[in-house]
């Protein structure tokens, strides 16, 4: 029942997103959309996914969009040409897709084809083969480790892409001047700074808990990385970019992003050298189960490092750009006045 209500709310939010012209409101609605879908995932038993979506969809993506809107302006121009052709295409495609659903297995059916193929093996044998209670973790890090490796590389590549597109090369004195102006703006938010100071250590602790408890409950490298980055981003927002840059060295996090991927890949290489297949952790230790545990620990660690540092790289690149834009505008205003 609750899933039907959540899905209906999702449709309402999606329609509101179409109709809104104010981009700020659109981004806020997108955050609500993310949070609603996370709640829906909990109702569908996908606790790990809900965890990730709540941190990413409702947290970091909203934040990034807001930073971009601060640079590009928040009003959408009303488009003059009629959206009728688009509506036609969408309605025809949607109608065909709905026609297609009549052959789909019903919601919740236990005999659907998707539950017949490899899932029974994961559910029945993963305890004996991998020895980790959370099946999602054992599939993610052991059975489909090669797949996950690809995903981590994609994240790393996206991080590099953002860095190439947005990194700002500037002289040191300039940077200090820009940042000192921006820092003075943060002095006034006293209450939230003190609360954040109290909370940030616990957020880090929680991230580490999620990282290392992922074998037994919902959690793992992806979620932990995002939460860790969120704590740093919170710090940067409240105490100024310059202070955050002093705490977190930019070259260092770029290095960590690469080291995470390298750690992941080298686990595969080591298992190859021990006469196993790529990412076959059984050969890592004398006991296959101990080997699996070691492999999963190392891989989750690599994933966590890469995800956390890529998220930080992305945020710092965007925020640095925004700082530069604000500085340029200020200079322009001074010259004109």
């Amino acid at each position, binding site marked *: 029942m609750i899933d039907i209500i959540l899905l209906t709310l999702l449709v309402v939010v999606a329609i509101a997103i179409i109709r809104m012209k104010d981009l700020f409101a659109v981004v806020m609605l997108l955050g609500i959309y993310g949070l609603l879908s996370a709640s829906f995932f909990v109702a569908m038993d996908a606790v790990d996914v809900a965890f990730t979506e709540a941190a990413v969809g409702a947290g970091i993506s909203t934040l990034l969009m807001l930073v971009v809107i601060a640079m590009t302006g928040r009003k959408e121009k009303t488009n003059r040409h009629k959206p009728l052709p688009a509506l036609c295409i969408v309605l025809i495609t949607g109608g065909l897709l709905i026609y297609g659903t009549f052959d789909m297995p019903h919601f919740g059916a236990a005999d659907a084809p998707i539950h017949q193929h490899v899932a029974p093996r994961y559910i029945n044998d993963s305890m004996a083969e991998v020895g980790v209670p959370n099946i999602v973790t054992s599939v993610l890090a052991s059975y489909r480790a090669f797949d996950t490796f690809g995903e981590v590389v994609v994240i790393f590549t996206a991080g590099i892409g953002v860095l190439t597109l947005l990194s700002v090369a500037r002289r040191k004195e300039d940077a200090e001047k820009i940042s000192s102006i921006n820092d003075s703006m943060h002095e006034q*938010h006293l*209450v*939230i700074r003190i*609360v954040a100071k109290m*909370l940030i250590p616990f957020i880090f602790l929680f991230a580490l808990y999620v990282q290392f408890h992922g074998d037994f409950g919902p959690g793992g490298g992806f979620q932990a990385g995002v939460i860790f980055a969120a704590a740093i981003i919170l710090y940067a927002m409240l105490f100024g970019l310059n202070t955050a840059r002093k705490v977190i060295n930019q070259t260092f996090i770029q290095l960590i992003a690469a080291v995470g991927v390298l750690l992941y890949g080298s686990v595969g290489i080591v298992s190859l050298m021990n006469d196993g297949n790529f990412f076959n952790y059984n050969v890592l230790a004398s006991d296959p189960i101990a080997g699996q545990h070691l492999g999963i620990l190392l891989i989750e660690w690599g994933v966590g490092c890469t995800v956390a540092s890529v998220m930080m790289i992305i945020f710092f690149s965007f925020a640095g750009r925004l700082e530069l834009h604000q500085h340029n505008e200020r200079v322009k205003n001074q010259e004109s006045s």
Partner: protein
Amino acid sequence: MDMIITISSGFFLLIGSFLCFSGAIGLLRFPDFYTRMHAVGVTDTLGAGMILVGLMIISTDFLVFAKLAMVLLLTLLIGPTTSHVLAKAAFHNGLTPKSLSNQEKNNKEISSSNT
């Protein structure tokens, strides 16, 4: 003993649900931003807090109890802070409470009628 626990937890859950519900109505019915935010603040802190207390009373497992206690602490810390930050941001951007702006309007009218 069981009876007392069930009844008291039901009591807290009921109060919590009522506060959440009244908060939602307040969000829809109140006239301006600050009063609406008051309604949301009540839902955030007191409504959620009461529901958590109710759940804590019926929890049999200590681990569940401890987790709920931590969530309660977190809501008590974060709820008021977010309300404060929201109100501050709104005030800094020049949004005045409705009663205040009405008063100003009245004052202006009085002063203009006097002159």
